[in-house]
């Protein structure tokens, strides 16, 4: 209980737009452990941003509770809510820096709001810019920085008030893969060295994979799955989980290859037989060829997870032999 920095209970959010009701979040329950990196993933419009904006009460829930260190945010006055927000940093996809103000003043902004003395503000801002590796850009304006540099400034700014949590809403979505991993490394370092809890919203599974401890998969305003990243990656239980983990999970087999008319089967690899060259052995066992229509696999902790769709040979006998072999090797498969 005391170990959770953020806890959300039975939360529901409805937006009223003209005559319509949009249920953005429904039946949300989750706990974020102090010092952890928590990921929230889902497709566009799933409700991720709305959820993260509940955590610092930028958006108020329609019903349900948001607890920060056990404290119900709905009980706070506007003023104490503003004080609380100083303990929760936030970074965004579009960086949201003050464009008319230079880098160091951007970092000093939250301190100015907190009425810190000017000399102390400058000292702290310089320290933070050094931490994010931008000491030489103090006097630059945001328009003179690259996306990655802008996000570093935003991180320095978010850290200024010594927050306990940093919320990241698609913080790497506007960055290229290399810059993305640099920013993720920086967040990891902040998490480890400063013991700041990090909440990451993303639609990229790779982000979750590379730094998160736990993950919640949001689909259609609800939590589809929640758990340790390792467990969910090994065995996603929901369609959306599979889709996000294995990429474009093929739902409609007919889309794949309409011209091929042989029998098709879908194989699932659950990480147990990754050392075996299953496919080549299967082909050898039947002494015939098969056609791989689709394959998607991922290696996690040295084990292979994924799926494959193959077209069996036309002659029944070889096809049966292949299926025999798969059964024998404990590979899950089904006709499609």
């Amino acid at each position: 209980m005391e170990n959770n920095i953020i806890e959300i209970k039975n939360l529901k959010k409805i937006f009223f737009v003209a005559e319509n009701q949009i249920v953005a979040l429904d039946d949300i329950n989750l706990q974020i452990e102090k010092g952890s990196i928590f990921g929230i993933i889902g497709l566009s419009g799933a409700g991720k941003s709305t959820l993260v904006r509940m955590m610092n009460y930028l958006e108020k829930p329609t019903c349900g509770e948001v607890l920060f260190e056990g404290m119900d945010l709905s009980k706070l006055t506007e003023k104490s809510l503003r004080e609380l927000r100083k303990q929760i940093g936030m970074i965004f996809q579009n960086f949201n820096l003050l464009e008319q103000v230079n880098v160091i003043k951007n970092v000093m902004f939250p301190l100015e709001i907190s009425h810190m003395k000017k000399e102390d503000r400058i000292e702290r801002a310089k320290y933070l810019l050094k931490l994010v590796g931008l000491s030489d850009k103090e006097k630059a304006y945001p328009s003179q920085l690259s996306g990655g540099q802008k996000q570093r400034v935003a991180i320095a700014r978010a850290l200024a008030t010594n927050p306990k949590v940093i919320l990241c809403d698609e913080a790497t979505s506007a960055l290229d893969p290399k810059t993305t991993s640099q920013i993720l490394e920086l967040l990891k370092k902040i998490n480890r060295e400063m013991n700041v809890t990090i909440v990451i919203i993303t639609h990229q599974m790779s982000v979750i994979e590379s730094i998160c401890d736990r993950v919640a998969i949001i689909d259609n305003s609800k939590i589809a799955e929640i758990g340790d990243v390792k467990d969910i990656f090994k065995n996603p239980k929901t369609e959306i989980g599979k889709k996000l983990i294995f990429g474009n999970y093929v739902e409609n087999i007919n889309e794949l290859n309409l011209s091929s008319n042989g029998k098709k089967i879908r194989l699932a690899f659950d990480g147990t037989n990754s050392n075996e060259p299953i496919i080549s052995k299967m082909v050898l066992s039947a002494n015939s060829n098969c056609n791989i229509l689709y394959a998607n696999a991922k290696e996690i902790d040295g084990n292979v997870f994924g799926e494959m769709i193959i077209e069996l040979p036309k002659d029944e006998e070889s096809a049966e032999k292949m299926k025999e072999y798969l059964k024998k090797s404990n590979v899950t498969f089904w006709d499609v």
Partner: protein
Amino acid sequence: MIFLVLNLNNIINQIISSLDFELYINSTIESIFMIFTSSFIAYLIGIPLGVVLFITGKDSISQNDFLYNILSIIVNIFRSIPFIILLILVMPFTKFVVHTVIGPSAVIPPLVISAAPYIARMVEQSLCEVDKGVIEAAKAMGASNFQIITKVLLVESKPSLLVGAAISITTILGYSAMAGAVGGGGLGDVAIRYGYHRYEQVTMFVTVILLLIMVQIIQYVFMKLAKKSDKRIIN
């Protein structure tokens, strides 16, 4: 050819000798006084009014439909009254404030009353251009609405506010010239009295040129300031 040049020279000399420099200098100073005093006061009213319009607007930081609609209607009413009518309508008020209804000072109250709502709309528009994400970030950092106004909105919209000032002050200049019609002083007054009533075309021409120069200077200075202050432009 030589004859023509001599003749032209003669004409120019004639015009120059007929010019009443003192009249032009005095009326230019009067115009500048009217324009800047009224712009200054109009901005003192227009900026807070524009800020209130912005923050009470839809989905803004302090949405208040009732207040927004009331202010919006008042602003629209004042903006829809032609200046020349307003000038006469507010005469009792003018007399009360500056104790006279003629001369440059008498033009300042109506100028302010007509320009402030105009400026308020310009300010509101400039604030609307500020990135919503930056406002959201400030909120997330725990900024109060007052801090958002002074440290985010007015800072981020500065270049746009300066462009707005070029337009607003030029409009005030136009109105101030119109005030000449009712003895308001300044260049507009000269143009009407000499150019229109006495049909002195040269005087008319010179005042128009002077007004034009003033418009150009205002436009140039504020656009330059706007460009210089805009840190989004890399130079």
